[in-house]
């Protein structure tokens, strides 16, 4: 940047003021998001972390968290992609109502979501007796964990996927049709590839939400090591006896989430 005559220096000053005005709130937000995590990480001693890793709750909870979230997210993608496609293309009032309806779980507090799941699928719930007749008892089981994760996480995928499908240029679909491609082919070879970044982003958000799910799981699935105790529940259980173990498990959860989200984003860019 030149510094001598003319208007340039003044504009430089204005630029700096403008950038500072933007930077102040940005830095405050970064601090609000990062400082608590730094506190978690920096106040832990290496021996505490090692002890946390060896905590008896960690292994089973990590396995269960990975298993249930992979199943939940796989289901959300397989069922949610066609749903998002319909929602993006139906321009009727019913379509808009349905779009809002499937977003509702986002605002339901997790513990209430757990009670709602019990009232639907529990022993005394709406569909509980019917399920019991075919030998299915969901509460306190691993499938209940998956169901709770789907309930809280699916809206995050749907939001990203609907937006992504809406941004797909209609003309490209029409052209593909006119060149002889069938509906299936247009969907899989034109619409999905064009929407892929949005689909992947939505899936990553849904996956992160499923991994951190706590309240609905505790209410609907209970807390039993190896069967329904995921990492967030293990953290709370450990918190009752030992803050350092809880912190170590929390750091494991964050590391796993960070690695997987990074991998998904890297994969999506390729």
């Amino acid at each position, binding site marked *: 940047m030149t510094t001598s005559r003319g208007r340039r220096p003044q504009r430089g000053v204005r*630029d*700096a003021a403008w*950038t*500072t005005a933007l*930077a*102040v709130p*940005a*830095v*405050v937000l970064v*601090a609000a998001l990062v400082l608590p995590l730094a506190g978690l990480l920096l106040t832990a001693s290496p021996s505490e972390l090692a002890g946390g890793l060896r905590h008896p709750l960690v292994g089973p909870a990590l396995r269960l968290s990975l298993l249930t979230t992979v199943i939940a997210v796989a289901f959300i993608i397989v069922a949610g992609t066609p749903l998002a496609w319909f929602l993006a293309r139906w321009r009727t009032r019913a379509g808009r109502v349905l779009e809002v309806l499937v977003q509702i779980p986002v605002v339901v507090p997790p513990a209430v979501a757990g*009670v709602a799941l*019990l009232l639907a699928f*529990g*022993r*005394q719930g709406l569909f509980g007796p019917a399920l019991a007749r075919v030998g299915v008892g969901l*509460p*306190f089981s691993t499938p209940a964990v998956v169901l709770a994760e789907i309930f809280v996480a699916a809206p995050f995928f749907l939001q990203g996927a609907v937006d992504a499908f809406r941004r797909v240029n209609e003309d490209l679909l029409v052209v593909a049709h006119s060149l002889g491609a069938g509906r299936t082919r247009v969907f899989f070879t034109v619409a999905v590839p064009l929407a892929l970044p949005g689909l992947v982003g939505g899936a990553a958000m849904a996956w992160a939400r499923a991994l951190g799910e706590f309240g609905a799981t*505790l*209410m609907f*699935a*209970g*807390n*039993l*090591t190896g069967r*329904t105790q995921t990492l967030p*529940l293990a953290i*709370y*259980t450990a*918190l*009752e*006896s*030992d*803050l350092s173990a809880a912190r170590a498990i929390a750091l494991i959860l964050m590391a796993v989430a960070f690695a997987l989200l990074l991998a998904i984003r890297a994969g999506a860019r390729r």
Partner: protein
Amino acid sequence: MSMARVAAVFALVAAVFAGAGAMPVGHAAAAAPAQELVVFEASSLKDAFAVLAEKFQARHAGIKVATNAAGSQELRTQIEHGAQADVFASADLKHMDKLRQAGLVLAPTVFACNQPVLVVRAGSRVKSFKDLPDVERLVVGAPDVPIGTYSDQILAAAARQFGADWSKRVQARIVSRELNVRQVLAKVTLGEADAGIVYRTDAMTAKGKAIPIAIPDALNVTAEYPIAALAAAPRADLAAAWIALVMSPAGQAVLAQHGFTACPKK
């Protein structure tokens, strides 16, 4: 403007904030004494202490009683990390002892006792504690939650009396180890679990949705509730007055109404 300059401005702003954070703050608050008594109470005390708070406010004009009800472990962690409170009432001795060792509370006094009971779903076939293996789904507290620790002690004593087979069948019925006693009760009142072990005081709040069944005295344990003023209490005078109210005949009567039992004489 180049990225480097943007980054430089960011760094500058961050440095200013870090500097502001390092400056000593909080001296301004020490002006007038607080017109508030802050009570940290174990969740099971919530209803009884709400009644006592009204009595206290009636006797001390202009003073407001602010309560923070949570698990004893949570409250202890908050106090260890500098939470401002005047009084701490815990549902078990362990957490109070840890705070006493750390010099954070003054000498504690046991002010109430509570006993675990079995609760079963309305309409259950189970009529006595010995029938426990007949339930399909049993819910108890997590091992490190006080009610879970007591439940394990009771089940261990029962195993010695009723035999290893009884114990094995009961253990196989446990479908969840809940993180607090209210969650245990909720699972039973919602009808999802057939039975659970909770405090007598909690069972009294279930109002017919969960039926209490006494645990035989020979197997049962007594939960002792200690209370203490915090060493750094902003209103040590009010803290002492609160403890005196809790220990008074009027205070003890309120606790008894909520299901607390007299403590066994030692």
